[in-house]
């Protein structure tokens, strides 16, 4: 887990400012960006995985119940999954409740 950018000392940087912690962007939860989030009608999901394929965030995964849904920690609410779902089982709803 990388320290916040504005707390790192010069001694803590690797030589050449190389980042050795693989894929540590996962600590930045882009879910805070969205103003809409996708909601899945689980029974209608045909598990075709097109939502997973088209998600620019790579944040869609298979839930325990078997359907596919977005990881809300990262989901930016772009709506691509809802637009592309062949079963039309994803709706974008406003975050403001």
């Amino acid at each position, binding site marked *: 887990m990388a320290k916040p*950018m*504005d707390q*790192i*000392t*010069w*001694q803590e*940087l*690797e*030589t*050449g*400012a*190389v*980042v*050795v912690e*693989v894929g540590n962007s996962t600590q930045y939860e882009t879910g805070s960006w969205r103003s809409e989030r996708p909601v899945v009608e689980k029974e209608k999901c045909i598990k075709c995985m097109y939502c997973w394929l088209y998600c620019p965030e790579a944040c869609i995964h298979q839930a325990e119940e078997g359907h596919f849904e977005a990881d809300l920690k990262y989901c930016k609410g772009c709506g691509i999954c809802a637009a592309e779902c062949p079963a039309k089982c994803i709706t974008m709803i406003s975050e403001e409740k």
Partner: protein
Amino acid sequence: MAKVRKGVEVSIAIADAVAQADVDVIAAYPITPQTHIVEHLSEIVADGELDAEFIPVESEHSAMSVCCGSSAVGARTFTSTSSQGLALMSEIFFIAAAMRLPMVMALANRSLSSPLSIWNDHSDVMMVRDAGWIHVFVDNGQETYDNIFCAFRMSEDPEVMLPVAVNLDGFILTHMIEPVMYEDDELIRKYLPPFKMKNALHPDNPVSMGCFGMPEIYTEAQMNREMGVRNSYPHIIRAWDEWGRLTGRHYRPVETYRADDAEYCIVTMGSYGETAMEVVDTLREQGEKVGVIKIRLWRPFPLEEFRKAALGKKHLIVLDRAISFGTRGGPVATELRSALYGRPGAPSVVNYVAGLAGRDVSRKDFTNIILQGKQKAASGDTEGFTLYGLRG
């Protein structure tokens, strides 16, 4: 190759040294006066004498880019350029040092345009003073050959990890046939361990190099870099000491000639040091108490060693090989004045700029510079610089 003394063009000696160092990648673009270096290297590779990838790039900018990629995967990397080529690659030249990518460059010093000039001076290397490379200056063929190995050793040292430029005067050295003692391969193998880069790019270790820096972190990255350059100093010394132990030829950041009991000294960088030494011998016979201070390590600047050589002298006559336009001194003189500022026993500094674009500076000229310089110093005329030999 067994140990043997040869009369050889210095460019060829460089290529032979690079081959003995078992370089993996050579990427270079032709530019006078470096051409013989890369031509001979491509011959050696074509004949199978050196197993390396010779990459004939389409520009110097790509030469340095290819070198960065090669170094980043941990391959031993060499390039060479001059003048306009250095200028064109300067964007990446700075980045190579910032990203701490070890590599060695033979920088055949040549003047910068405009006017176009293929001849020798130091305007090209002075342009990149601030880039964060290690810069070594050599005076003759032997020093050139030796320092190729020392440069790889310094550069790839895990405590250093900085690119190194071996600066040699274009034409004056590159195209001169000099006596060079070639060391045998066994000694080179002993001196130069294989290059093992800690975070080299490889699928087994997926690191990210060259991430961008927000204001919150850029300062710290720069300090990390500055300390990297400063902390390289003892390892540079160690690389030279080890070479000296193995070959008997010792190099130091500042070398002096008849300076210990000198009242005043001439300061040189590069091949002018040789002529200066001969002229000093003659002047000594005439009763002048003069010596030579040679700066071999330009970056990181050898503050302590320079002060040790210079403090206590009455005057220094600093020979610059480039003009920094709009300032009151050549780059070297400015640096030395700054190093001496406020120090007890600091000599006065008189600055001459000579030999721009390879204009010959003969022994007579050196004598004039030294004696006139001494007079200027004595009369307090130490401001600015004198462009020696200027007509008009």
